[in-house]
C-alpha cells in the first residue's frame, strides 16, 4: 500500500522534507511521525495515516513533496489488513480570508461552469435575456455555473458570480502586490565581497514566509504602539508561591494570558478581524491566543486554544509542552492556526519596550519586556518595585487610540490586581 502525503490543511499543499523518521523494515503505527516537512508556515511532522511494515521509503531529505505524492510503501502487515484513517483535511479556523484562501477562491471562480461547452452555434444554456445582460455587464457566461437543470444559468447565478468576482478583486489586491513586483524597485545588488570575505546562505522556507508576512502586515496595517508599565511586584510574589504549591511552573506568560483574555472580553474589537473583501468586522467569540516563540530557525506563533476556559495550571502545563515541542520542532500546522490575538513576551531574554508587528489577520498584539526593579512612587514614597514594560501594537484601521489606551490601562490594572484565589484555583 502506498502512503501519500495527506492534506496539510488550508493553504498548504507542499513542503521540503527536512527529516525522515522511518526506514525500511520499520513497523509503523497509526499516527506515528513519518517525516518532517518544512513549508511556508513551519516545520511539521507528518503522521502516518495507516499502520504496517515499511517496505520502501520513497522520499529523502531535501525532496520537495506535494500533497498526494507517495511518501512510502507499507506491507499489508501480518495478514491483518492495514487500518487506514481517511486523511481529513485540517480545518482552518481563521475567520478572515488569508491570501491563501483567496487563491483557492480564484481557482473556484475560474473553474469552468459546465462539464462541457455546447456544440458550436448553440448558445450557452441561458435565456437570451440573461445572455444579453451578461454581455452588457461584460460577464463571460462560460465561467458562470448554472444552477438549474441542464446547467441552465439564471439571473441568480450571474449575480453570485459577480459577487465572487468583487470579493476577489478586493481580496486579491494585497495578494497581488505580494507576488507582483514591489512598488519600489528592488535594491541594486551589492558585491559585499569587495570589502572582505562573505558567506551566503539561502533563506529557509520559514524565513521567507516570515519575511513575506511581516512585509504584508507592515505595509497593509497602519500600526500604532501604545506603551505602559505594570507593577508586577505582587504578581511576582503570587507566582512564586503558587508555583511551589502547584508543582507546575506558573510563568508570567500564564498570568499574561489570563489578564489579556479578560481585557479582550471587555474590548472585543481587539479579538476581531477586518474582512477587507466584504468590509466587515469579524468578531470572534473564542479566545485563541498566539504566543510568539523564538526558535533556532526563526519565529513561530503556536496558538493556545480557548484560554478563557482554562485555569492557570492547565495553561502552565500547555505552555511547558509547547516549549518542548517548539524546541523539537514538533509543532503541527494546526497548532499555528486560528489565533485571535498574539502575545510576544521577550521578558525571558531581556529588554524594555519594543514595537511588535500585528500578526495579520489579527488586529492587535501585546509585547512584554523584561520585568525590572525600578524606583517607583507609592504612597508618596519612593519604593523599589518590579516594573513590567507593556506595549500594545494595533491596527489603526479598526481600532482608535482611545480604545487602545483604555485597553492598556485595564490590562495594567489586571496585572496589578490579580486575584489570589484565582491563582490558587
Amino acid at each position, binding site marked *: 500500500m502506498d502512503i501519500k502525503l495527506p492534506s496539510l490543511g488550508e493553504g498548504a499543499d507542499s513542503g521540503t522534507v527536512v527529516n525522515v523518521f522511518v526506514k525500511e523494515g520499520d513497523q509503523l503505527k497509526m499516527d506515528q511521525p513519518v517525516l518532517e516537512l518544512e513549508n511556508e508556515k513551519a516545520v511539521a511532522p507528518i503522521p502516518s495515516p495507516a499502520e504496517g511494515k515499511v517496505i520502501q521509503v520513497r522520499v529523502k531529505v531535501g525532496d520537495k513533496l506535494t500533497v498526494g505524492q507517495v511518501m512510502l510503501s507499507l506491507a499489508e502487515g501480518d495478514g491483518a489488513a492495514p487500518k487506514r484513517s481517511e486523511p481529513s483535511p485540517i480545518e482552518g479556523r481563521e475567520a478572515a480570508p488569508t491570501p491563501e484562501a483567496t487563491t483557492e477562491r480564484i481557482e473556484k471562480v475560474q473553474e469552468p461552469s459546465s462539464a462541457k461547452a*455546447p456544440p458550436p*452555434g448553440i*448558445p*450557452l*444554456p441561458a*435565456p437570451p435575456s440573461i445572455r444579453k445582460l451578461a454581455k452588457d455587464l461584460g460577464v463571460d457566461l462560460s465561467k458562470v455555473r448554472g444552477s*438549474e*437543470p*441542464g446547467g*441552465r444559468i439564471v439571473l441568480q447565478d450571474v449575480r453570485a458570480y459577480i459577487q465572487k468576482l468583487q470579493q476577489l478583486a478586493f481580496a486579491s489586491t494585497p495578494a497581488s502586490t505580494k507576488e507582483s513586483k514591489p512598488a519600489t524597485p528592488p535594491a541594486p545588488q551589492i558585491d559585499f565581497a569587495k570589502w572582505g570575505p562573505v558567506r551566503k546562505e539561502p533563506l529557509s522556507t520559514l524565513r521567507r514566509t516570515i519575511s513575506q508576512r511581516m512585509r504584508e502586515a507592515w505595509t497593509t496595517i497602519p500600526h500604532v504602539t501604545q506603551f505602559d508599565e505594570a507593577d508586577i511586584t505582587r504578581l511576582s510574589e503570587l507566582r512564586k508561591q503558587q508555583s511551589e504549591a502547584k508543582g507546575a511552573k506558573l510563568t508570567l506568560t500564564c498570568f499574561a494570558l489570563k489578564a489579556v483574555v479578560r481585557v479582550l472580553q471587555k474590548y472585543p474589537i481587539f479579538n476581531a478581524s477586518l474582512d477587507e473583501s466584504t468590509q466587515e468586522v469579524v468578531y470572534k467569540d473564542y479566545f485563541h491566543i498566539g504566543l510568539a516563540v523564538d526558535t533556532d530557525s526563526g519565529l513561530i506563533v503556536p496558538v493556545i486554544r480557548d484560554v478563557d476556559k482554562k485555569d492557570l495550571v492547565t495553561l502552565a502545563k500547555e505552555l511547558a509542552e509547547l516549549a518542548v515541542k517548539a524546541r523539537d520542532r514538533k509543532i503541527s500546522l494546526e497548532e499555528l492556526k486560528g489565533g485571535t490575538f498574539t502575545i510576544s513576551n521577550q521578558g525571558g531574554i531581556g529588554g524594555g519596550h519594543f514595537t511588535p508587528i500585528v500578526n495579520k489577520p489579527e488586529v492587535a498584539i501585546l509585547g512584554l519586556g523584561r520585568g525590572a526593579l525600578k524606583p517607583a512612587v507609592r504612597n508618596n514614597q519612593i519604593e523599589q518595585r518590579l516594573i513590567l514594560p507593556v506595549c500594545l501594537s494595533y491596527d489603526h484601521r479598526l481600532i482608535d487610540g482611545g480604545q487602545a489606551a483604555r485597553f492598556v490601562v485595564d490590562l495594567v490594572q489586571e496585572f496589578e490586581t490579580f486575584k489570589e484565589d484565582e491563582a490558587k484555583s
Partner: protein
Amino acid sequence: MDPIQTEIVVIGAGPGGYAAAFYAADKGKKVILVEQEKRLGGVCLNRGCIPSKALLHATKLVAEAKESHTRGITFEPPKIDLAKMRAWKESILAKLGQGISGLAQKRGILILTGRARFEDSRTLRIETPEGQKFVNFEKAIIAVGSKSAMPKAFDLGNPRIMTSREALELEEIPAQLLIVGGGYIGMELGTVYASLGSSVVVVEALDSILMGADPDLVRPVMKYAEKAFKEVRLKTKVLKMATSGKQIKVTFDESGQEKVEQYDRVLVSVGRVPNCEDFGLENTKVARDEKGFIKVNSQQQTGDPAIYAIGDVAGGALLAHKAAKEARVAVEVITGETTAFENVIIPAIVFTDPEVAWCGLTEAEAKQKGMDVKIAKFPWSASGRALSFDRTDGLTKLVIDPETERILGVGLVGAGAGELISEGVLAIEMGATARDLAETVHPHPTLSETLMECAEVFYGHATHTFTRKP
C-alpha cells in the same frame, strides 16, 4: 445642392433594412432609408417569401380538392385564371408595401428612392427620380440583399429561362417545366407549378434535395415530389441550354451519360449572389469575401468603421429573420449597447408539401462531428391531430445532450411544421431540457403535442407510442 445630413442611413428596405431603420428611429436616431424600388420590402416581400407563400396557399387547394374525393367530397377539375391569381397576389404585396411605408412615415424616416453609391466612407450618392442627392451620414447600414444566381452558360437572354423572380410573376403555366436545383426555392416553386398543372422535372447535382435538412425529414417531401412531379433527378448536372423555337433545349449529364430534352420553361434556382456590384464599395474600407459577400464581425461591423452590413449581403444564412436579427444587433451596436450576433438560433423552414423545419443542431451534423447526442423521434402517425386531417406523413425529432438532457436541436416535417418550429427555437434559446418540454402541457388536439410527446419518448414514457426500454 447641399448634402442631407443624417445620423444613420440604411441602404435597402428589405426585412433587414426596414427593421434596422425602424429600430434606429425608435431609438431616437435621425434615419434615412434608401431603396431603389418604389415598393419597400425587398426580395422577401416583392419576389420571395410573401409571394411564394401566397401562391403556395392558393395552389394547395388544388391538391387538397383532388384528394378530398376519398373523404366523400368531389370537385370538378379547377379552372385557373392566372390573371386573377396574379392580381390577388399583387394585392397582398401592395398592402404589405403600403404598411411598411406607413410605418416608416410615422417614425419620421426619410425615404429616398433610387440607386445608392458610396462616394466615400461618409457620403452616399443617390440617383433619385428628382435627380442626384447626396447624403452625409455618421453610420451606414448596408442591407442591399441578394439576387438569384444565373450561371453564364444559362444566361441566354431568353425569358423562358427564369429565376424565382420571374417564376413568381406567373406569366403562364408551362406544360413542361424544368427546375435546375433542388433547394428550397426550386422545391417550393415546383410545388406551385405542379399544382397548377405543369409537368415538373427537378434536377439536382447533389445526391439529395434540400441539402442541410436531415434525410429522414426530407423523405416525406421526396415522396410527395415523386408523386406530384414528373421526376426528381439527383446527381444530374445541366451542361448547357439553347433556344429551340418556343422551347429550351437542355443538355444533361446524368451520372456520366449525356441526355437532351426539350422544355417549355426552365427555372434556375442554383443559389443566390450578393448585390454588391456598382455600389461604390471600393470607395470605402468595406471588405468582401471570396464569394463577394461583405465581411462583418459579430457586431455587424465591416472593415469600415462607419459602415455596417446586415442580411443576405453579409453572408451566412440568406433568410429574412436572420437579417432582422442582425438589424437589431447593428442598431444596438451603433447606439452604444453591448451586443453581438453570437450563437443565435436561426430556424430554417421549407414550405414544401409537407413542410420541413429545423433549428439548432441537426442529427446529421451531430453524427458528422462525432458528437454524443440522443435522438428522440415521434412519428405523426401517432398524432390524433395529424390523422384528423389525413396527413400522417410527419415526424418530430429532438436532438438531446444525454448528459444535461438539454435540447440542442429540433427537426420537423409535416403539414404546418413551419408554425411549430418556434417552440423548438425558444426551447434551445432558453436552455430548456427535454424534461422541461415533457412537463409543459400542450393543448389537445394539436400538432404541438408531438414536441411534448417526443420529449417523453426520450424518457421512454410517451403516451401515444410505445418504446421498449433497452
